[in-house]
């Protein structure tokens, strides 16, 4: 790529009329070799060039150059994409397919904002809920009420959940038990490192992650502290904006990014630790949101350089192998935004292999998307279900646990396993590690 900073004026004769359009220097890199076809989950299923990475880039370029208008020919393929980025891992010429798709969705968002009940729902979640920690708190309280006072059981018994479409029903059942307060508020603002300090790290808590997976944040903090990291939890941080970018709502994502960049710059830390692959990828790619804004672009770059996935961070500062045992047969599922978007594959496996008793078996195509893909499992339930089925079929026989690094995948896999009645646990990498350290402490 020529340069990270370019002007983003829409090309004159193209179908992309709004700022922040797919960048010519990104799509022109594609040489149409087709090496991406066979790793693309939608191409694998439909075998239609329109729904392949190469096809999508070709159509985006045709629209940008004015040979196609921004109609169904372009819009459908751009939205059937899971944005899993598997194509980027194999692409020899380095086409940033994910950025192109996201920018194209941004154009569609301007051209034809989502309407009707779907649009209302999208706006409710992406603009009305996720960006606002307080409102998320209300949702948390309601969820807790639902779970704690037996309402969920009651609803299940009365068959009320059957009113939901099957994929939502499965997800509703798979929701983990919600704790009283989010990690962002329940954890102290500053937690000291155990032993000599190797660095200061700010914990990124996220939106969904901190409603549904507060215990993963707690585990993350414990493991980080243990390895000489002082942890701070900035109170004013907000949602990363990934779901908004995936939906094409770039203005909202940019607003969230500005807020986070400011908040974390004030915290003066060495690292920003993330335990959700989707958020981690988004934070590392903040510069992409400010291609046309040199000042913010520079700030975003400084921010992005400090972002680490928790597995990546632990590998970087070094860990001591736990002495506690987790005697289980497990397999590791690569979250797309961890392996393809961030290139983190080895570190989680190394950490897990250091856990005594844990027998880690590889599954075939561990890097293939499970179908969760942000909100794809809500917007495209049919394809999401197909991919989930394939993923579960690939689990090696006899595993008792699936380990992964992203909340969306955890929910999706739990929903699928519950549907099948399979008693296999789904855990975050750092939870397994933490369990081993906890065990060690109990022994001592």
């Amino acid at each position, binding site marked *: 790529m020529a340069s990270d900073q370019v002007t983003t004026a829409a090309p004159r004769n193209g179908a992309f009329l709004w700022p922040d359009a797919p960048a010519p220097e990104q799509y022109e890199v594609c*040489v149409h070799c*087709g*090496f991406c076809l066979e790793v693309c989950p939608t191409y694998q299923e439909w075998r239609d060039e329109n729904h392949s990475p190469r096809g999508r880039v070709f159509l985006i370029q045709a629209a940008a150059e004015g040979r196609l208008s*921004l109609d169904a*020919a372009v819009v459908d393929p751009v939205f059937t994409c899971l944005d899993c980025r598997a194509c980027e891992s194999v692409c*020899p010429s*380095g*086409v940033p397919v994910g950025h192109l798709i996201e920018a194209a969705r941004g154009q569609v968002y301007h*051209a*034809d904002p989502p309407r009707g009940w779907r649009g209302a729902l999208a706006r409710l979640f992406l603009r009305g809920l996720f960006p606002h920690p307080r409102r998320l708190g209300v949702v948390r309280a309601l969820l807790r009420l639902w779970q704690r006072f037996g309402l969920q059981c009651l609803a299940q018994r009365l068959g009320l959940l059957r009113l939901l479409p099957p994929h939502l029903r499965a997800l509703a059942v798979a929701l983990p038990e919600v704790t009283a307060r989010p990690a962002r508020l329940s954890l102290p603002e500053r937690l000291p490192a155990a032993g000599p300090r190797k660095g200061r790290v700010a914990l990124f808590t996220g939106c969904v992650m901190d409603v549904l997976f507060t215990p993963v944040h707690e585990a993350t903090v414990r493991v980080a502290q243990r390895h000489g990291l002082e942890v701070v939890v900035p109170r004013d941080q907000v949602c990363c904006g990934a779901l908004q970018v995936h939906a094409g709502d770039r203005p909202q994502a940019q607003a969230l990014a500005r807020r986070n960049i400011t908040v974390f710059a004030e915290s003066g830390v060495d690292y920003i630790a993330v335990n959700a692959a989707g958020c981690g990828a988004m934070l590392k790619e903040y510069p992409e949101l400010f291609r046309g804004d040199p000042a913010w672009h520079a700030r975003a770059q400084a921010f992005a350089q400090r972002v680490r996935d928790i597995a990546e961070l632990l590998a970087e500062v070094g860990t001591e192998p736990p002495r506690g045992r987790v005697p289980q047969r497990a397999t590791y599922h690569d979250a797309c935004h961890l392996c393809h978007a961030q290139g983190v594959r080895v570190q989680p496996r190394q950490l897990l292999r250091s856990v005594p008793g844990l027998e880690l078996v590889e599954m075939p195509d561990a890097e293939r998307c499970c179908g969760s893909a942000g909100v794809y499992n809500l917007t495209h339930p049919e394809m999401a279900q197909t991919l989930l089925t394939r993923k579960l079929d690939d689990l090696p026989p006899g595993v008792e646990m699936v380990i992964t690094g992203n909340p969306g995948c955890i929910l999706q896999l739990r929903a699928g396993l519950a549907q099948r009645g399979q008693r296999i646990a789904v855990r975050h990498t750092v939870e397994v590690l933490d369990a081993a350290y906890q065990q060690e402490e109990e022994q001592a």
Partner: protein
Amino acid sequence: MSGTAQVLDARLLQALLQTLGPRRVLHQPAHLHAYACDGYVAQQGLPRAVVFPETTEEVAAVVSLLNQYDVPFLPRGAGTGLSGGATPLHGEVVISLARMNKLLAVDLENLRAVVQPGLVNLWLTKRVAHAGCYYAPDPSSQSVCTLGGNLAENAGGSHCLKYGVTTNHVLAAKVVLPNGEVVDLGATYGDAVGYDLLGLLVGSEGTLGIATEITVRLLKKPEAVQTALALFDRVADASDTVSAILRAGIVPAAIEMMDQLAMQAVDKSHYHVGYPPDAEAVLLIEVDGLAGGVEEQMRRVVELCRQHAARSVQVAQCEEERALWWSSRKMAFGATGRISPDYIVQDGVIPRTRLTEVLQYIADLSRNSGLRIANVFHAGDGNLHPLICYDARIPGQAELAAAVGSQILRACVDAGGSITGEHGVGVEKRAEMTYQFCDADLAAQEAVRLVFNPRNLCNPGKLFPTPGRCSEVRQSAWLAAQFAAVSAGFPEQTRILAPDRQGRQDGVY
């Protein structure tokens, strides 16, 4: 073959929909653009429709229908071809075989497999790997290209130096002829009795029929494999090494070469090896066979490299290292996107002994034309792949690149070689056919095509030079009209899509 009736007849559409169902027929113009070309992008055209049959019977039914309506058609696999064999230049109906991707039968004892044409080359190997078997022809695109496409192009690959090309591994095929009849060609065991019609079909670039079931030979994985990476300060030394190895009676499984520019390109990709920037050439040499013999052969290969002034020779110490070296070679075409916005990959063959001289000629052409040319090739069998880098946005560069490519091919013929080793003629090298063959040669080949494909409905306009320039001009005028038609509706649509003054937006889709 007519260039005007590019709109799909409504009755034909109904019949296609009835045969395949609505989900396996693409016919709305919006859904056809992605099929405008294959891996060769310099020429493009829109198909009338794209259909996705799943069985031999469905292919036969579709072909019969198209005959009935006198509509041209062409088969397409993964669309990774590099000569435009699957590009619809006359509004052909594209018969995509991508959904016919089953492994139908495997006989491990007799080392045979029967596959559908859309099965991906590497998948076949993956599916039989548990028994220590593999399918030998390995084009660089083997992770995506289909066996049907391999058959149509008689694909080669890095290892065909020792193991031969696709035609040596395809034993029999069920074929839908251009008139819709289904025939069985070849023989699973032994020599086919009568004319070698399968031999004609392999490499016919989709002009003689559509293979719908292919019986291939499987091989047992060699007991041992060793791979060496040798760096050279001068291209000439690398070329001499190749000749010396083969002269010594060693038949390596593969000898691949990349020059400086190609090394730079791959090193910029995910497949980074870390080649020294000042080395002029790298050789990747693989020997395989029985464990004892392999060791001895590799020892001699290393010795020969050293004797020919290799700067360094390394033997892969583990499978990961070997895999990286191979990926670096196989991804080289695509990685050219890292150093140039556009490229043409050529595919000439020369006698191995003239390697240095032809490479020098290519270097001179590069200097004179001002276009950078990277070289990646199967050095062992003299199959060159010059990658001519250009920028299509600069007026005249695409034409210049095509002219340079043509000159290289002519040089290959002059050196006693040929205009294609494995990529096929397609639309790309039609003009050069007349340089390689005289009129009588070409007439003999066309006569064969007319036997199988008398109405020229099956992949028309490929492989043979179009007689006379007028038809070429007509065709390009037709193409231009086609693109004009596509963009004609466009200005209004942009107006509709743009927010109006009140900020109200009317979507149109």
